């Protein structure tokens, strides 16, 4: 985890060296949120990704450091699902809104049946994925890759965001103008999907309660390939479900695994000219 002070007015984050050079190549890095993620949470998740990336950047390859990485959020609206979850939690468990918001990311208070009823549909049913959102995501990638931007694109989706990313990726190469497949890479986190397109990478924790619950009914989803070690996060109300994106980027070895996959993908992208 990054060695940041708890509070310091002087903890100014340094700009990426390559971003000081107008001629340096640009790479767009998109975060795509999952199903229980409000807009505020999505912004914080994208911020965590940027912070951890910047913390690791000095140790990454010269090819990666030569790029200026510009971070974006491709929001996957989930207010309807969160509201359904809130109503179900209040009706079935009698918990207060305050408790709900404290426990939302951790999933600790919620019964397996509640999780299954409220979340497994949106997490597994491709028919419940919003077509307009997929179009918007795909258009955002296309805009970055096409002239005049000519940027490489890295997508880091979390949870249900993996399903949106897979669908947007397919759309990118099924509608003209067709983009170069080598100019976009995916590093999935906590994925309920069965594949990562474009030979992309992914990390799912063995202690991810939500993905493990989905695996019971969908055994073909990608197997777990990382974990949170003995992180105290697994004992905290906000992260105990092992599914939080912030948790994935705080606990070890999942944090290092995800960042290693990101570096590997950025290395591959660095050899590509999108235009």
């Amino acid at each position, binding site marked *: *985890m*990054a060695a*940041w*002070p*708890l*509070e*310091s*007015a002087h*903890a*100014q*984050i*340094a*700009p*990426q060296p390559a*971003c000081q050079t107008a001629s340096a190549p640009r790479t767009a890095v998109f975060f795509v949120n999952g199903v229980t993620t*409000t*807009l*505020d949470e*999505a*912004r*914080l998740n*994208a*911020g*965590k990704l*940027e*912070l951890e990336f*910047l913390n690791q950047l000095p140790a990454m390859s010269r090819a990666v450091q030569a790029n200026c990485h*510009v*971070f*974006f*959020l*491709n*929001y996957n*609206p989930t*207010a*309807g699902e*969160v*509201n359904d979850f*809130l109503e179900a939690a*209040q009706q079935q468990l009698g918990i*207060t*809104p*305050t*408790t*709900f*918001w*404290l426990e939302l*990311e951790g999933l600790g208070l919620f019964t397996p049946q509640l999780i299954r009823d409220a979340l497994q549909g949106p997490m597994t049913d491709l028919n419940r994925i919003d077509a307009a*959102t997929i179009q*918007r995501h795909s258009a*955002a990638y296309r805009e970055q890759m096409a002239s005049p931007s000519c940027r490489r694109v890295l997508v880091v989706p979390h949870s249900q965001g993996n399903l949106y990313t897979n669908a947007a990726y397919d759309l990118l190469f099924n509608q003209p103008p067709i983009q170069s497949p080598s100019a976009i890479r995916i590093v999935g986190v906590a994925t309920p999907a069965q594949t990562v397109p474009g030979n992309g990478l992914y990390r799912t924790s063995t202690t991810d309660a939500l993905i493990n619950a989905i695996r019971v009914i969908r055994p073909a989803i990608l197997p777990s390939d990382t974990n949170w070690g003995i992180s105290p996060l697994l004992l*905290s109300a*906000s992260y105990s479900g092992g599914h939080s994106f*912030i948790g994935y980027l705080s606990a070890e070895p999942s944090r290092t695994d995800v960042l290693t996959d990101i570096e590997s993908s950025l290395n591959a992208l660095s050899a590509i000219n999108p235009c």
Partner: protein
Amino acid sequence: MMGIVWLAVGLTSCGGGSSDTPPPATQETVAGIDANGDGVRDDVEVYIDTTYPVPAQRDTNRALRQVASAAQVTMIDASDSARSVSHAAERFRALECLMARRPADFHLVFVELRARVLNTTARSAAYLQADNHVTAGNVPLLPADQWVSACL
């Protein structure tokens, strides 16, 4: 934790303190009470000042007030699509300020505050209704090296 909320509601809702029993949070309006008109609901203000006292944690205190203020107008204007998009930008700037001030634990700090801000079903519903008006394509992000500039 709920005790703080109940206490705060009781202190700020009863004017002269005419009752020993605070009204249930579920009976409060979405806006609640902001007696000093600073844009932060009074019970939330009590939580922030108690948990992050000034001057020891002045930067965090100010960042959380910015987050709470942005959430407050977001809930109040939740039925207005254009205002929801505008307020989303204010929320993003406030969150970027918080990340600049608390890079190690901004998420936990945020989660604890949000639980106090959205302490009724009506407030939670309004917050989610506002989210429904927004797609992030409308709200650009500041790069991390500029987050501190988002602090008011």
